[in-house]
């Protein structure tokens, strides 16, 4: 039986991963490993790197990102992802919702944390 806290964290990660991936593409196109690196630097969302790729596949199926193969200097091709117009709109909407949601959540939790810190 999995630890309930582990399960909770896994659910949270799954929910946020899509938003986070879209956010990493906001500034321009990236290939898989670049997206993963950006996520690893700025979040705790990636546990198994391989799980990012199926999400990218879904975003592509949903028409939110485009993907194209390109030869790299190192000799093997890389698959680059970029936001489509629909993807940009979606990213912006998700970012706004996320920000509001996090602000409310923080306001809810903050008093409790302050109290226990004392």
């Amino acid at each position, binding site marked *: 039986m999995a630890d309930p806290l582990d399960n909770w964290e896994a659910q949270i990660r799954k929910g946020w991963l899509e938003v986070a991936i879209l956010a990493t593409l906001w500034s321009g196109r990236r290939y898989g490993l670049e997206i993963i690196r950006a996520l690893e630097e700025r979040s705790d969302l990636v546990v198994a*790197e391989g799980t990012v*790729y199926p999400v990218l*596949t*879904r975003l592509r199926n949903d028409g939110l990102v485009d993907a194209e193969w390109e030869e790299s200097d190192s000799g093997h*091709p890389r*698959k680059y992802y970029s936001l489509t117009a629909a993807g940009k709109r979606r990213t912006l909407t998700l970012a706004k919702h996320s920000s509001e949601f996090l602000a409310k959540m923080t306001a809810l939790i903050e008093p409790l944390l302050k109290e226990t810190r004392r």
Partner: protein
Amino acid sequence: MTTFDQPLQTRVDAYLMRLRRSLGELPPEEVNEILREIRSHILDRAEASGELTDEKLMRILKELGQPEDIGPLYQAEAMVARARSSFSPLLILRTTIRWAMMSIVGFMTFIVGLFGYGLALGFSGCAVMKPFMWDKVGFWVHSNGFTMGTISAHETARELMGWWIIPFGWTVGPLFVVGTTRFLRWMLRFASRRSPIAAT
């Protein structure tokens, strides 16, 4: 061009082979695309790690995750994508069942879908059976209300449609199939925008 020494290459190939197996029955071009991308990931990681040793490669593959965990994620995405762009009631219903097991909305959608297809079957069934059981099949009015289909002969009931039930059944039945399929597709699209339906 990045290449691996033979023992390392064997390890990478074994990993990709396990992934290929766990992708199940995805179309070959999708499988190739996935393997190509994961291979590209391994090559990039290997490049960044300096001189590649067996331990380093094992860590790269460990961080990538078990192929048996990743494959089903791809399969789930593919299933939803196919169902959304498909008009096959069977595929759509199968995907909806999957969804039904995961959320209340999915369950309600599944029930509505089952009801819709059930009605379609009922109407078409009446049209098919009328020539064979002309005195039993019909649109009956009786003391308890209406019955579309067969009633036992001894009940006192009046039949309203007569032979018109055949063109009626053949029109309304397919309309229910198309309507239900459209509804389910629409719900699947709606749902997958909110949450990864099938990602477990």
